């Protein structure tokens, strides 16, 4: 499906202008329903989640999901926004199994909680690590540059 056709098909979403692939922002509340819809609807079938990215915008977080379909080859980018003080996003690890690891990574580095995730623990950091390294206000206790 061409990007234009995809935008028309998902016309209930608001798409950003001037992006390479159709890019839409949804709230955490709407994300589960949208994920189910784009995964299972005929003609869309986004079966392959190839990238999950956390971004800290200082006022809020977004989690960016890059989706594609192995049958139709179209690409959709969904940005889910989350509150800065208490970031919670529903998990999609039961829809795309790869999200299980990717969401753990985002949790580990940003502290965004994925509700319903089967095994949400630190992935790269040690279990007793304090803070969330990729947040913009994170200060490394052993900062080699400032020492």
């Amino acid at each position, binding site marked *: 499906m061409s990007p234009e056709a995809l935008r028309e098909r998902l016309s209930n979403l608001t798409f950003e202008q*001037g*992006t*390479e*692939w159709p*890019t839409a922002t949804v709230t955490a509340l709407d994300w589960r329903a949208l994920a189910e819809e784009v995964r299972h609807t005929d003609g869309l079938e986004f*079966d*392959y*989640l*190839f*990238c999950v*990215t956390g*971004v*800290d915008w200082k006022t809020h977080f977004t989690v*960016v999901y*890059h989706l594609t379909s*192995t049958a139709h*080859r179209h690409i959709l980018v969904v940005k889910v926004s989350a509150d800065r003080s208490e970031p919670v996003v529903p998990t999609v690890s039961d829809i*795309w*199994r*790869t999200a*299980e*690891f*990717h969401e753990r*990574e985002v949790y580990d*580095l940003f502290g965004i909680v994925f509700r319903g995730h089967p095994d949400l623990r*630190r*992935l*790269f*950091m*040690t*279990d007793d690590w304090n803070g969330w*390294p*990729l947040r913009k206000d994170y200060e490394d206790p052993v900062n080699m540059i400032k020492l």
Partner: protein
Amino acid sequence: MIEEIGTTEAGELVINMGPQHPSTHGVLHLIITISGETIKKVEPHLGYIHRSIEKMCESLSYRQFIYVTSRMDYLSSHINNHGCALCVEKGMQIEVPPRAQVIRVLMDELTRLASHQLWWGAMAMDVGALTPFFHAFREREAINDIMEETCGARLTMNYMVPGGVMADLHPRFAERVKEFMRFFRSKMDEYDELVTNNVIFKSRMQGVGYLSRENAISYGCTGPTGRASGVSCDMRKIAPYEVYGRLAFNEILQTEGDCYARYLVRMAEMRQSLSIIDQLIDNIPEGDFQAKTKAVLKLPKGEFYSRVETARGEFGVYIISEGGTTPYRIKFRSPGFSNLSALDHMARGHKIGDLVAIMGTLDLVIPDIDR
């Protein structure tokens, strides 16, 4: 983590494999639950070589950050650099000269060959055959020498820069590559004789570590791992970059989804890489090897994503720019990370010896997973 080790209530044993274990090729730590010798669960513990490259890149310029990515998947360093250069070029709308495009593809394919060679030797060693390792390293040495002459380095080349490549090819490059190709073609047949058709090897590989097509897609397995399960996921075919769209080569697909299928895919890919190099080595266009770019690169505000095919699968670079000289956020989508997530699913029900074979055919590079 130590508390977890021991016997569970169900009489199953929980043991460590790694972080220092010869078959993990780096510091990968697996916590395995076994009943007798049958694997019930495999749980990877990552982070032993986590350097937070994504955070480091936030304070590096668009020229500097490319060098760090050589240290992720060090066996595909050219292709990592390539992905980053493509992403910056996409943002800056830089046109890469034809000569640089061909040089880049040549280097990518030589890298793929070298990476698959190392995989072939190491994987055979994991399952108990020591000789192939020495064969593979002998052949890989020839590629390293070629790289050294042109790029000045043998492992972390840092040869791709935004706008093209850092320096022109060495005058002897084409001649030496052709010499290597002649030499390596005869060795490929030897590889098949030595390992591919070996009965003991086949019985270790066939029917082990099955991954269905649906699961391969769901787990995000790409590269030879995905293609052995019948998923068409070659970025060189799906979204051709540089001159790949104009080249004649096949995407290798198998449907068995077991260790042997993954082995066959990589072996066939080596032959495809040889054919790509064949098509290009006599047709390197004359001209500039680098487009003219400013000394300080500034990406416009926006988001840019590039996807390339490394020896392990799909490598993605996602740059979010706020318009400055450094990226606001960079995300690297590493193929090994997603491929590893399927390990637990593939290993359950097999023996520990099979786990080593499965890891061998996944071709894991740990710095690529940990970043």
